[in-house]
């Protein structure tokens, strides 16, 4: 992200917009990376004919169960929904910031978040590690 930012800093017109500008670059690169990995599923032929699932790398045991389960649930969302969800709920951005970072209108951001929330809650209900966290959450 920072390499891209350094190389394209000339495109930043307004210095006060640095934060959303960086967020936009991060979102763009994250989306490209998620799509690249998804494409690799069928572009690359794996030895033995059996393709391993694209999961987060194995974590040491002390890594929190909820964190791992959240990654697992997020990996099942579409890239745009996953990014919107992470910006809103993990990064704590408000809706306007999410829309700006994703370079979409506020209405689109709202729709995306709504879809992401519904899907995430549905998936989370199947994961015991997240049961306590989402208790009370509407699906």
């Amino acid at each position, binding site marked *: 992200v920072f390499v891209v930012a350094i190389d394209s800093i000339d495109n930043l017109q307004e210095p006060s917009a640095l934060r959303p500008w960086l967020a936009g670059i991060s979102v763009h690169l994250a989306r490209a990376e998620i799509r690249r990995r998804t494409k690799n599923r069928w572009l690359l032929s794996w030895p033995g004919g059996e393709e391993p699932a694209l999961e987060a790398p194995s974590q040491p045991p002390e890594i929190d169960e909820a964190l791992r389960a959240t990654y697992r649930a997020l990996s099942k969302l579409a890239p745009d929904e996953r990014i919107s969800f992470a910006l809103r709920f993990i990064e704590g951005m408000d809706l306007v910031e999410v829309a700006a970072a994703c370079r979409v209108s506020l209405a689109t951001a709202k729709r995306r978040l709504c879809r992401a929330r519904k899907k995430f809650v549905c998936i989370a209900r199947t994961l015991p590690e997240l049961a306590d*966290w989402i208790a009370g959450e509407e699906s």
Partner: protein
Amino acid sequence: VNWDPLMRLGAHVAAEQDREHEQRRPEDDELREFLARRVAERPSAERRAERARPLPRRWLLPGALLAALLLGGLLLVMDWVSSEPPRGKPLSFTVGGQSGILHAWESAPEDHPLALVFSDGTSIELEPRARARVVAVDSDGAEVVIESGRATVHVVPRTLHPADYRVRMGPFAVEVEGTRFDVGWAPEAEEFSLALFEGRVKVTGCGFGAGSEVPAGFRVEASCQRPGFVLTPVGAGAPDTPEKPELPADETPASLGAADAGAGEYRLREAPEPSRERTPRSGRAKPQPSWQELARAGRFTRAYASAVRAGFDDECERASVEDVVLLGDAARHGGYAGLARRAYSAVRRRAPASRAAADAAFALGRLALDDQDPHEARRWFSTSLDEQPHGPLAQAARDRLFELALRSRDGARIREAAAAYLEQSPDGAHAAQARAVGAESESPRR
């Protein structure tokens, strides 16, 4: 719509991510240096403007053709390289198609097998009722413990650097680079068996002593209750093997010194001494990386093994305290909590009240958390914080202490922890939650 539960979960995830990030300080320093170099090497504004000028139209067609050729070549190279995982990044694995968890026991159901698949293509298929767990992974392989039952192991051989898998069953261990074999362990009878279809493996434990190589096409059986082992060709009295492989001429029983064994029994040749094994394929000896280098590269299992070979306790006294913290981390990530504690304790004894000692205290707190001992964990996190209140792990220690207070379900302690947290970390990851605790405690008085 009630957003609060997801906000709470998100804040927790963010805090965990921050904590993980704290553990990567060396990477941050490297990144900072890299970015500083990048800024320094940035071309001048005139040069950038010159580069941005579009190419003359006549160059467009040849340029596009060249780009297409390059892209085609790149795709071919990527296809070749993609068959091997990148060096330095630990392998991931799945169990029955789901993301696998390190140290978690996995049991195959009674009626069908269960597959453990690693991201380099290696697979371990547990037969029905078999039980196993993955105890360590690094970029070259993994260590798997089979508690009971049978499994079919297929380690995918690599071109660029050898795979390094280890399968342990009770006192027996099988070391393997790239091969295909069946293995079984019956803990009650202490019976070990292995049928090797391809490649070569080294077995250690009980009758195998310091280690013996098993050649392809042979089946070996051993037990700690009797000396030695029995070696028979695969297919001779081994009904569960898929096929009888062709034996290379130089691996016939006669060449293995079988004449003095009983009927159908052969003797294995001794595995090479550790100093001679895994000679580089070029024939020239390469300097082996130190455990410090291995640990810094994230290859914790190898780093730990290397330190043990050099004398773990000696290394704890000999190496710099920063390196001993690293050694503790290698042992901890390898699942050797006891040795990790020894390393961290050595750091605290050798350099009390130093930054390394505070880091060691924090790591001891994490080990206590693994042991479900919140009292001990609290003690160590507090020690780390007291010793280095402005150190790089201070914020993580404050987060952990607040989380421990929340887990205690003790109202007074939670309120006290929330107040302390807000005072020290008003912008911390748990600040919102701490404020909510404060607000809740005040609400009945209104």
